[in-house]
């Protein structure tokens, strides 16, 4: 089947011989990227659901509604420009999270309580 093989989700697409565009600058200036957070229902936190591009904050909110809440997935939306977010590295070996790694005494299971003591 020549040098084309195919993989894919909504139908096979070739993986060999296709350019990726990684490290290629955008062909025209892009609208800023926004990260979208949705509160699923009252009583829950806003949770990150994805991202989108928009020219400004208002458009980002409207697009977020159309893209991420077509089936009552939310009662409230936050949009935040991605370049306004400061992130740690998610790497679990990151020294950022080392201080909590050796503090087992912060967990209730660290403490032995006799079996006959109720409700603790």
């Amino acid at each position, binding site marked *: *089947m*020549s040098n*084309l*093989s*195919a*993989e*894919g*989700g*909504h*139908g*096979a*697409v*070739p*993986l*060999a011989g*296709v*350019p*990726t*565009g*990684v*490290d*290629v*600058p*955008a*062909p*025209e*200036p*892009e*609208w800023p*990227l926004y990260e979208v957070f949705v509160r699923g229902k009252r009583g829950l936190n806003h949770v990150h*659901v*994805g*991202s*989108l*591009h928009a*020219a*400004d904050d208002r*458009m980002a909110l409207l697009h977020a509604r*159309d*893209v991420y809440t*077509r*089936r009552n997935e939310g009662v409230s939306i936050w949009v935040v420009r*991605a*370049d306004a*977010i400061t*992130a740690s*590295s*998610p*790497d679990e*070996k990151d020294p950022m999270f080392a201080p909590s790694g050796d503090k087992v005494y912060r967990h209730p299971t660290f403490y032995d309580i006799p079996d006959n003591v109720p409700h603790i």
Partner: protein
Amino acid sequence: MTLTETPLDAGTQADLESHFEATIARNDRIEPRDWMPDGYRRTLVRQIAQHAHSEIIGMQPEGNWISRAPSLRRKAILLAKVQDEAGHGLYLYSAAETLGVSRLELTEMLISGRQKYSSIFNYPTLSYADVGSIGWLVDGAAICNQVPLCRTSFGPYGRAMIRVCKEESFHQRQGYELLTTMMRGTDEQRAMVQESVDRFWWPALMMFGPPDADSPNTAQSMAWGIKRNTNDELRQKFVDMSVPQAEALGVTLPDPDLAWNDERAHYDFGQPDWDEFMQGVKGNGPCNAQRLAHRRRAHEDGAWVRAAATAFATKEATA
């Protein structure tokens, strides 16, 4: 988000590689800011971007019928379905962007034909029964492909797939219901359903890609946890699911080799015309030129809207 890149020495490089391998081996997810091998990144960009393109181009065959839907009910359903496909494209483009590729560059690569989309969308939709066949068979095949991708090793891709899969079930059911409604109608309507199923059955089987023996990328994709099942496994699953559905519907699947195999406990079936598939991939399918021209026109016609929105945003920001 800004990334700070520091040059790596050889020792660190080996560390990063073994950390990546260990994460995959644990069946844990790789997240965008993790180090990953260049081949992994590029394979994912190709797969996710072209999956996104498929969703976006996939709006066209069905969009063709929105203005001619037989009832308001069918029109509302079809509009919602096509809008979902746009949404799927957008979830996937955002997942691809986390790998360091720009959205506009992806669009450019689609409309210039450098990146591809699924060949299934190069077949024309000739009757309203095709809306039903696409929902039942094409979205049905997509579900078989996409459900295992919910566990793919790249976090953003898997999360996009979870959202997509929740919506696909509506797509398949509305299509099947449309066909059952037509099958309860006149002889002409039943014939229309059969004719449509005859045209879409083989292209639906092609959606799983070439046989495993001809899919040299599969082994690497499975080792990286990007892909969870081989093309042939998924195709078999789809056939096994579809046969009883076709019986309940009262249509014949156009494959003389289709038969239950007691020993294997699966259906045996024939192979689609892989030359036809390759022609589609190379851009020679029945509607390739039309689909790409339409997408290019939509992008170019939208240029003034993008410029106006940018100008308005700049004006608001400086006001």
